[in-house]
Every structure is written in C-alpha cells, then in structure tokens.
C-alpha cells in the first residue's frame, strides 16, 4: 500500500542513541558477562582471549550500536510513517498513519538525563510494536505524535490545544496503600533468594554453622527459655513481614510515582514512574475488556484496581528486548472504590450506564456440586500427608475440610453473578479476591459452550466468552455451573450481537 515508493526517509536518531543501544544490549548480557569475567579472573587457564574477552564483546556491541544508529532513518511520507533500518540488509517499513494506534514512550533515568525517549509505534496488528525507535529527543517525539495523529485524523485539525482532563491522579498516600495491598516486595525477595541460591550463597558451610552455634550470642539465645525464644521468633517474622511491606511501598512509589490518567480527545493517557517514566496511550476503541480486582486488603482500604485489555497485546512471538506487552495495562493500579465506576465509564464510553444491570445467579444446584467437588478433592489431597504428619490428628484435619468446603461453595455461589445489558456482558466472581469483568458485546470474539460429563449429568454447562488482547487464562469471561439452557441462550444472544457487522 506504499503509494510513494520514491520517498526517502531522512530523519535520524538522536546523536546519543548508541549509548542506549549499548546499555540495552549489555543489560541483556550482564549475567553471562559477569560469569565470563569471573571465570577468567579465577581460572588459571583462561579462554582464547583471556581477560580481553569481555572488553572485546563490549566493543563489538558498541560498534554494532553505532552502526544501527548511523543507518537508521525515519520520515513522514504523505501516506505513512517510514522507518528504514540497516545498510547492507536494508529493511524499509511503511506504516500507514490511519493504522497507527499508539505512540508510547518510555524513559529511564538515562533517557531523562539526556532528554530523550524510547518510542514504540503500535498498530492494531497485534503482538510486538510495529516500530521500536530508540531513541529520539522529546521535541522529535512530539513532532511525530503531531504529524502522525494529524495525518490520521485530518478532520480534527484543531489538535494544537488538546484539552486534557485528569481523571485520576495518585498521591503518595494512595501509592503507599497500593504498596501495602500489592505486596510486590515479596516477589522481589523471592527473586533475590532465587538468585542468591543460584550463586551458591546457601550452600551450608559446616565451619560457619559451628562457629555461629558456638558463639556467645547463640549461647545467650539458648539460655533465654522457651517463651522468650518463641517471642523472639515471632518478632523476627513480624519484622520480616514489615520489611517486605515497606519494600513493596517503596516499589509502588518508584513504579507509579505521579500516576496520572488523563483523557485527551476521547483517548486515555497514562503516565507514571519515578525513575522510568512511562507514557501510554490507551485508545478507547482498542479496549477489549475492563477488569476490576478487589482483594481482601483492597476492601480493608476501600480500594480497587482496574486494568484493561488492549487489542494487539496478546499472541505473537516474543520480541527481543521489548516487554511492553507483558505489562498490565493499568487504568488505575489503585483507586477509591467510589471512583471506579466513573473510570470504567471513561474506558468504555460507548456503553450506556444509565440502567443498573440485572444480575443473575448460577444454576440452583451449583452450590451442591461445588461443595462435593471441593470436599472430595481436598480430602483426596490432604489424607495422605495428614496421616503422615499428624497420625490420629489426621481425622480432625480431614474432617475440617468439610465445613470449609461448604463455606467455599456457599460464598462462591453467592459472589458469582452475571449480567447481560444492552451492549455489554458483566461478570463478577470470587469471594476472597473479587473480580468484575466487563466485555462490550461488540468486542466478543468467539462463544463456546462446554459441558463435561458431570455438567451433563446435572444439566449445566460452562460458557466462555473470548476476547482479544489478553492471555488465555485471563481473557474475557468464563462462567462455570450455568444451567445448560441459560448458557445456550446467552451464547446465542452474544453470538448475534458479536456477528452484527458494524
């Protein structure tokens, strides 16, 4: 569709692009490089290049980065954005203006120091960004945004002063809450343990253990008596928990500092980050589904978190050095529960929110089935370990499964509700972690009604409403234990509206 084959892109990358190319490549190879350096220093018989191997690799990568920078050109042709890479193996990519959905930027500390940004140009094709331009200075990015979006929508020439309403701004207080709820520090600690374990830190050193055991502090600990020892242990555990929570809070502040969700000409824009500033455009017509998540801790703080699925975020193969689509598309990592409906309405402006949806329950016999299933599985799984560890106590442990299973079944059924409104399907589920998923009916991809032998015995079925833009596990709506006839009717209704040509 390139109607202008003679067009030659002339614009270059920022003069310091190679620095980012180099640092990006080194970041990926940092572990092998350290290992190489380490072995070469320690080993008596170094490899062919001896201690020079690491500098040689770095130099080669730097030369490559400079080469990429020198041969990279981009330009604005009359019909689309043109990106040319390489000189020997030349690759010219032509992206029509009308198809460009997002121009996202990401700026780390280094980027901000030099006043540049990494630019991702995305289309609705899916998978990886159509073009990754690393790096441009901010004026060039602004120019690209203006050129692309003014060409894409020539009718809206009044782009000079786009009105930007702030829909949500997270203060430090909110971020502290998010850190406390989210507890991402735990993941970090687990990862750190993993790395340390790999590095051999936890290999038990006999001498060290003996020395610790024979030290005066160990003797003092032994003399404390049982109660004191238990108290000390509890304090240690409590301290660790608090430390992890504090780490989570710090992480939340670093990641989402100054989180700002704004609306510009119908589209949403999210900007956040203390060191790495991320600017994402969430075009509302690409939003496939909105998920609201509410854990126990969220409820204590009267907060919810909201994220969206964007078309093109799923599928495709892994792109090198690009993790943008692995990220959750946050509408709000945390927000007051009372603010959520307004934000959801902003994300799905085409939906009509005037009428309260009519919520429907699962099949009447679902509770019994869930109870039997949960009880059976927990007994099956627990019996052997319980007998092994508790002996006579096993009967208590196993029997206690039964009221717990009943509670689970009761709450599962109580908190699972679906609703079909004029232009969307809504689904709530989960009692400990409550989730609400909203799928606009014109975003439904496929409908699938599935029935296991157990389902058929009790005339039930599961309904899967598939949407684009998510992983197979989190996509769309999956309702189990529906009455079979309801599932069929629901699928038929959704099928008709999904297939209506727009």
């Amino acid at each position, binding site marked *: 569709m390139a109607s202008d084959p003679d067009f030659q892109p002339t614009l270059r990358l920022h003069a310091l692009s190679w620095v980012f190319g180099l640092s990006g490549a080194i970041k990926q190879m940092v572990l092998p490089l350290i290992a190489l350096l380490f072995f070469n220093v320690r080993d008596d018989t170094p490899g062919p290049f001896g201690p020079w191997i690491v500098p040689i690799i770095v130099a080669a990568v730097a030369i490559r980065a400079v080469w990429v920078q020198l041969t990279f050109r981009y330009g604005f042709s009359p019909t689309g954005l043109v990106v040319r890479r390489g000189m020997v193996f030349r690759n010219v990519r032509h992206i029509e203006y009308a198809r460009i959905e997002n121009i996202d930027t990401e700026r780390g500390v280094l980027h901000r120091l030099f006043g540049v940004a990494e630019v991702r140009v995305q289309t609705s094709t899916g998978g990886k960004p159509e073009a990754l331009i690393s790096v441009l200075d901010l004026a060039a990015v602004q120019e690209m945004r203006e050129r692309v979006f003014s060409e894409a929508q020539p009718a809206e020439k009044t782009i000079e002063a786009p009105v930007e309403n702030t829909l949500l701004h997270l203060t430090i207080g909110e971020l502290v809450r998010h850190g406390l709820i989210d507890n991402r520090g735990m993941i970090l600690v687990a990862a750190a343990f993993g790395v340390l374990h790999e590095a051999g830190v936890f290999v038990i050193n006999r001498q060290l253990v003996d020395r610790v055991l024979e030290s005066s502090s160990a003797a003092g600990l032994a003399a404390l008596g049982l109660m004191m020892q238990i108290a000390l242990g509890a304090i240690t555990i409590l301290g660790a928990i608090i430390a992890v929570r504090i780490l989570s809070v710090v992480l939340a502040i670093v990641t989402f500092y100054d989180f700002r969700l704004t609306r510009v000409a119908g589209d949403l824009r999210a900007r956040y980050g203390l060191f790495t500033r991320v600017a994402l455009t969430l075009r509302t017509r690409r939003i496939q589904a909105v998920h609201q998540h509410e854990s126990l801790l969220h409820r204590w703080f009267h907060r919810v978190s909201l994220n969206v699925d964007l078309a093109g975020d799923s599928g495709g193969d892994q792109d090198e050095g690009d993790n943008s689509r692995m990220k959750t598309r946050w509408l709000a990592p945390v927000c007051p529960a009372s603010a959520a409906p307004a934000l959801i309405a902003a994300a799905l402006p085409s939906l009509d929110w005037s009428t309260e949806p009519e919520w429907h329950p699962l099949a009447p016999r679902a509770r019994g089935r869930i109870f039997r299933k949960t009880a059976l599985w927990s007994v099956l799984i627990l019996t052997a370990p319980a007998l092994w560890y508790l002996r006579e106590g096993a009967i208590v442990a196993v029997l206690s499964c039964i009221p717990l299973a009943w509670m689970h079944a009761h709450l599962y059924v109580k908190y699972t509700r679906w609703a079909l409104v004029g232009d969307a399907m809504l689904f709530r589920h989960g009692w400990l972690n409550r989730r609400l998923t909203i799928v606009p009916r014109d975003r439904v991809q496929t409908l699938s009604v599935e029935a296991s032998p157990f389902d058929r015995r009790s005339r039930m079925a599961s309904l899967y409403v598939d949407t*684009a833009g998510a992983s197979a596990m989190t996509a769309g709506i999956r309702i189990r234990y529906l009455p079979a006839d309801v599932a069929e009717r629901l699928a038929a209704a959704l099928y008709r509206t*999904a297939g209506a040509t727009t």
Partner: protein
Amino acid sequence: MAPLQLSHVDSGIIGVWRWEAAIATLIVTVAVTAFSFSIPPLWPLAPLLVFIAGILRTWWWPPLSYRHLRFGVDDTGIAIESGVLWRSRIALPRVRIQHTDVSQGPLERRYDIGTLKLYTAGSRHTRIELPGLRHEDAIALRDALLAEGAGSGV
C-alpha cells in the same frame, strides 16, 4: 443458536482417524514392548494391554467422535460442535475471522479430505479447526465465510 441447522462432516474422516490411531497404536506398542521387555512384572501384560486399548481406540472411537462432530453455517457465522465426553460448541461470527487455512495431511489427501482452520484475534480460541470436510467443500466453505467477512476483527 437453535435455528442453526447442524450437519455432519464427510464420513471419510473416520478412515483418516482410524489410520492415525492405528499408526499411533503401533508406535506406542513397539515403544512399550521395548521398554517393558527387561522389567519382569510388566512383561508381557503391559504391551498387551496397550495393544488392546489401541485396537479399541482405533475401532470404536472414530465413529463416536464422528457422530458428535457437527457444524452449521448461517448468516452470522459458523458453529462447530464436538467432543464425545467433554462436549463443546463454539460459535464464531464471520466478522471475527482473521484469516483461514485449508490444510491436508498425507492421510487426508488419500481420502480427499481437508481441515478448515479459522483464526481469530481472541486469546483462548485463537485457532478453531473443523476437520473432515471434503477438500473442495472446505474451500467452498472458506470462501463463503470470507465473502462478507470484511470486518476489522477486533
């Protein structure tokens, strides 16, 4: 989805499935035989059981599977019903079809049968397969589905 008229695919697919199952049985039986030869408690019961199970699978399962595989096309799109024990019916509006394949393996070619593969932009059902159509029928169905399916897909 009640008004949709469902029909069976070509019965030649039973032959394809039988051949496939027979080949799989042969391979697994040979592997199990080789493995259990040196283990006294398994020999010769394990390979025998595997062989019998394979024969049953080859003879009984394809017709059952065939009986439960049905599809229907209407103005909106296509619905495919399948599964003997775990039954599923998937409905795909034609505006959601991204692209299609008609593929043919060597066994399918012998029976002049093709598999129609429909790709969507979805996340869980990104590829929906309808096996067992006669090759020309599969192509005709593909063309019929694509004729008006000029939607954006997302």
